[in-house]
């Protein structure tokens, strides 16, 4: 996972509410068995709309998306995060995110920034013409017009994102703690820890 701290550049002023994962990457793109190449399918249906921001050369290659409420709702497909990464997006700013999407984004080194609707409205305006900057270390979103918004982030997530740490490896290092819990649980709830041989 790539460390992430400063994200700066133009932003897609998308603004739409309840963007579900089918919109981010339609189901027919889910047949892949690797993580690469999904950028081609990102926002496929939106891209069929004339004048959409994703095909507007003005925003080509932007690392940021500004969106509406409840971004990433719908299915748990992590392909949504891979698709965003593959199209070069490393930060999404919205009033709120679906729990699963923000978890998936974090695990792939994408920063999700939740800001109040008023801030989103302002950033949508700025994004039309100018860049936006996000600084994870100081937890701020700024523009060259003196706009400055601070955002909250879980300290553990912040640490992992800044260092590019892989969660699986971190947890595996706690193997003894897990084993201790496992044997205690096997005593207390043997029916959950023991899997009967299936009898058809």
């Amino acid at each position: 996972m790539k460390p992430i701290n400063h994200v700066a550049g133009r932003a897609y002023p998308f603004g739409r509410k309840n963007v579900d994962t089918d919109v981010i990457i339609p189901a027919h793109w889910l047949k892949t068995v690797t993580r690469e190449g999904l950028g081609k399918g990102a926002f496929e249906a939106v891209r069929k709309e004339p004048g959409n921001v994703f095909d507007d050369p003005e925003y080509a290659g932007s690392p940021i998306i500004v969106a509406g409420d409840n971004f990433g709702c719908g299915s748990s497909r992590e392909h949504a995060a891979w698709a965003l990464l593959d199209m070069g997006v490393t930060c999404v700013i919205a009033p709120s995110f679906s729990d699963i999407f923000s978890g998936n984004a974090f695990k792939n080194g994408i920063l999700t920034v939740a800001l109040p609707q008023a801030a989103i409205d302002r950033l949508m305006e700025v994004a039309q013409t100018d860049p936006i900057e996000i600084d994870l270390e100081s937890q701020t979103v700024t523009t060259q017009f003196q706009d400055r918004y601070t955002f909250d982030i879980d300290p553990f997530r912040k640490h992992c994102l800044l260092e590019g740490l892989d969660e699986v490896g971190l947890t595996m290092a706690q193997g003894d703690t897990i084993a201790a819990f496992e044997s205690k649980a096997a005593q207390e709830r043997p029916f959950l820890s023991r899997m009967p041989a299936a009898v058809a």
Partner: protein
Amino acid sequence: MTTAPRTLYQKIWDAHVIETRDDGTSLVYIDRHLVHEVTSPQAFEGLRTAGRTVRRPDLTLAVPDHNLPTTARKDAAGNQLPIADLESANQLATLRRNAPEFGIRYIDATDREQGIVHVVGPEQGFSLPGATIVCGDSHTACHGGVGALAFGIGTTEVEHVLATQTLLLKQSKTMEVRIDGQLGPGVTPKDVVLHIIGVTGMGGGTGHVIEYRGNVFEEMSIEGRLTVCNMAIEGGARSGLIAPDEKTFAYLKGRPYAPKGEDWDKAVAWWKSLATDAGASFDKSVVIRAEDIQPTVTWGTSPEDTSAIGGVVPSPEDFTDASKRDAVKVSLDYMGLTPGTRLTDVEVQNVFIGSCTNSRIEDIRAAAAVLKGRHKADNVRWAIVVPGSGLVKEQAEAEGLDKIIVDAGLEWREPGCSACLAMNPDKVPAGERCASTSNRNFTGRQGPGSRTHLMSPAMAAAAAVTGRLTDVRELVG
């Protein structure tokens, strides 16, 4: 020692926390892990690249479902037929290869136990009350119907669970949805959950685990409870739960992976202790009267876009929220609907009865009860019934339901996800409408340009008969 009253969720959570960090993140033990072909290849790839193994292969069960065609899987000689779509075939082959490589129990496409992962789990007794259950699929909430704390995870989390049998989680807030009273005739669990989402909105449960409470859920069958919990995610919640009771125990007893002998007795004793204590409080509470719930359908492209079947297509102006107004405009345009049209005047060309929401035996029975002695309307071009598993299929056939379905002009298929998300060849053509018992009516969900109306199996069967959205109570009194 006195403990403060706790909710069902809190009790399951407390029993599974390994440790909690200063920032409030907990390392949580996972009891059961279901794996299917779509969200697992990259997780196994990750393990392989890092030289990692699966910590508890015995607690993991893999079954293919999303990509499988629902047409015959074997030729007359019993050989497995090839899958035409090469990408689908490759994904299925990848799971078939990965499962034995990592020592995981695997049900194959042609095994009689094969089915949709969320139908197979409870059916095999793999999903148990009080267990933490995960799967790389957002409808994992389904297993809350047997009282499990179950939720969908992404592929990196699948890898995390495979390698460590744990997940890093933040405790959720709790939400109670309480429905007491008497459901009217023709009102099924699907109508109940569609109505709930219409009331709470698509984001109403965000950050919460929902516990469904009240006599309506107590009286509901296990199949019905699975239907309700299946759609908790459609209301924004990561999990939905219903307290396990005698019905749950009776449903699970004797199933292949359910506890046996002494373990069973211990299990039942513990399961009985899980119910929410009197006086426990919820962060949010929604109360609905059973009498207010009508047979319900969706008209838009969000599961919150529900209406009683007696209603009309709304107008964007009916909504106060400006962004919802815009969304409704886009959605009605996509759906090809005019405000003010009576829902029962909306014609359908396709009918899909299936998906992890509504493909259990009770659902097939409900559809067959409406179809019996009737025939699908001529304007319905494509109508399929897809059982949730091979065992559901066998049971339905033993009851002669397949015959009723076929005589009514509908197709009786092999188990799988099918037209729920159209990863296999079962798709709704662009611009056409589908009366569907699945859980999502998102843009393009059942195929590019498809228009989905969500409803119960009985209502979908009624739509097949009349060729339009129909109040099932007009057909069966």
